């Protein structure tokens, strides 16, 4: 992967501004790329942001012989809902300044912007970076190139992120994909409880009224039930 020339960043930033101002992005989009879930109205993401999140989440947890992937589990819908609510607004974050760049590791979130700000900025930066380095928006790349793109972000290569460093965003994103796979389905992910089915988590221990206190010492007897959530 080649370093991105500075002019590309300028162009990318201006493009982002243009998009923000309501102009159509002057880039070709692959019409063959399906809108992934599209089953419910988006609460936070723009359609393009949603496409990016869905495409990258699918590479984190791809559909394969082991079962359905992040798209089937509605992971991007989960993240959309999450960012639209209290978490996205940083409702429980301490937001008073001054905001200083940490001198050492271990200080966590130290920026004035909220998680939804961080997503919006990072997703635009990712698409700009993808466009500059791989010639297409993230959602339109082949799976192999999407993996390359994720590896770039994971390694901290892009220099056009304005809120979180790429590595920090990547860790943030992985955490949210994980939640979308395995949280109770009432939060919009883990569709059909496919995340729990994959691993064999029974869900709410009260669902069947089975006495775990009588089962826990029955070693070697698997407790295989169709999982149930709280809803």
């Amino acid at each position, binding site marked *: 992967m080649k370093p991105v020339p500075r002019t590309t960043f300028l162009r990318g930033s201006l493009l982002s501004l243009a998009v923000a101002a309501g102009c159509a992005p002057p880039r070709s989009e692959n019409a063959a790329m399906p809108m992934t879930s599209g089953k419910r109205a988006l609460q936070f993401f723009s359609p393009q942001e949603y496409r990016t999140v869905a495409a990258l989440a699918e*590479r*984190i*947890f*791809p559909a*394969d012989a*082991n*079962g359905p992937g992040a798209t089937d589990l509605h992971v991007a819908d989960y993240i959309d809902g999450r960012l639209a609510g209290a*978490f996205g607004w*940083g*409702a*429980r*974050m*301490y*937001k*008073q300044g*001054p905001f*200083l760049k*940490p*001198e*050492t*590791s*271990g*200080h*966590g*979130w*130290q920026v004035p912007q909220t998680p939804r700000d961080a997503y919006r900025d990072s997703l635009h930066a990712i698409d700009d970076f993808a466009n500059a380095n791989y010639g297409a928006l993230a959602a339109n790349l082949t799976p192999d190139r999407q*993996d390359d793109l*994720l590896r770039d972000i*994971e390694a901290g290569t892009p220099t056009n992120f304005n809120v979180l460093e790429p590595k920090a965003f990547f860790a943030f994103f*992985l955490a949210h*994909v*994980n*939640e979308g*796979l*395995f*949280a*109770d389905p009432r*939060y919009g992910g883990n569709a059909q409880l496919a*995340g*729990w089915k*994959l*691993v*064999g*988590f*029974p*869900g*709410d*221990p*009260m669902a069947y009224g089975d*006495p*775990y*206190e009588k*089962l*826990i*010492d029955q*070693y*070697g007897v*698997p*407790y295989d039930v169709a999982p149930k959530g*709280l809803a």
Partner: protein
Amino acid sequence: MATIRHPEVDAVTIGVGWTAGILAAELTRAGHTVVGLERGQLRGTQNFLNTHDELRFAVDHDLMQDTAQETWTLRHDLREPALPFRELGAFLPGTDLGGSGIHWNGQTFRFHPRDFTIRTSTIERYGKDAIPPGMSIADWGITYRELEPYYDRFEYMAGIAGKAGNLNGHIVSGGNPFEGARSREYPVPPMKEAQSATLLSAASAQLGYHPFPQPSANLPQVYTNPDGITRNGCTYCGFCERFGCEVGAKASAPVTVIPVALATGKFEIRTGANVFEIKHDGKHAQSVLYYDGQGRVHEQPAKTVLMTAFTFNNTRLLLNSKMGRPYDPRTREGVVGRNFTHQIVLGGSTFWSDKRLNRYMGSGANGMLIDDFGADNFDHHGLGFIGGASIIYQNTGARPIQQTTVPEGTPKWGAAWKDAVRTWYDKQSDIVMQGECKAYWDHCLELDPTYRDQYGNPLLRITFDFQEDDRRMMRYISGKVADIMRASGATKTMLKSELAAHYDTTVYQTTHVNGGTIMGSDPHSSVVNNWLQMWDFENVFVVGASNFPQNACFNPTGTVGALAYRAADGLVNRYFKKPGPLA
């Protein structure tokens, strides 16, 4: 705005969790009036009916302090600018009635006799030079023997399930042979063992170590305590850690001591009451000032002030009230805020290709452990560190977001990660190394000069980082864990043996934070005497893990509970009968 003034009571507690609940029960039964000021709201078992929700409780910290309102700042050394924790991470203090004693795991220990005399014992066995120059470990000013009756009180009140290893000096098989002498057996037999824990405890026994059942505040059976309180047995639902217990099997103040205090008619709990200052004349506290839920200021006069908040807030309130001598890490003068410690923790997992473990059946204190490498239970000559860690094979549950690990070398994402998660989710046993955290002269709590809470009062600034002694200790202990993993015959393993470059506010260690108002036998080096009474203010008692001069290799709640009973004894049987210094 005019201050709303209340009639004087015998005692006011600041916060209503374990320590306040114990003190209120003991004081009101002796006829004293107590007001408990709780900044959160009422809650109890009825609030936990839909508790099996990992996102809400474990990820989003539903039961825990809101850092938007009040947080802490951290610097790793005296030179670095301190930055605020902008969200919870390294520790998870509770909020609302019952405090952190609601979402705890129920792991309930006694500290070792040596832990209370760590400085003297270390010098006796290894010489003065064994203590590095920056380390400020101190004796507690109380011995295990003096505290034993109070441990016993707490354990019988809470219904701790376990197996004694030392009864009146006689070693009993099946328990912890390294523990201090107990005057009697645990009130309740141990919990049922999850298979995941037995696999590793078997390997430990094979290596000659001494596995014993995790002492648990989660009742394995119905239990009626000496106060007449009856609680249900545990359902092993696997949702203790970070959750409230919907059946009341997990001991907490609201299901044990608070009802006892309320039944006397002499205990009043006021919620939404956020104490910001203690009024005093330099020798005696007179009243406490608090904001109510509307932001109005109230004044509650009291004959005694019982500081029963979480570790940090005991120290912060003393500093904000200008009580006691604030500690200055540069001169090492003063006492309030000194010896802040946390817990040094690493962990790992073993994976078994031929097992299905049903590990979602468990409880917060459901496992086995060994103490062979805890405290000073092994010879440290030539090792370059002091102290040790308990090694815990625990089965606290198998919540899929946070309690799934994958073998060493697995990619963090993609098809290989997915395959590993699917393959190993129910085939793993977890190991935790819970290490001592030794005190250092630089590690302390002070008022932050910059950042403030929602009321405009200074936040507490923490100075803390991992030290070379910690690193050596954890390398050594993890070497022993690696041996156990090998002996277990596990298919694959994952083990962390190195601490991070710096203490990280985002990585959960434990909620075992300690110090700031430490106890001792000398007013020049401690805040409270061994009755938990302030040296400088005889009618102020500070009770909690803030009293610990440093941390041991076990969970703190058993010792916190014992200290609360000790303070209650001092108040009821000594102070109220004849007010004055108790030591």
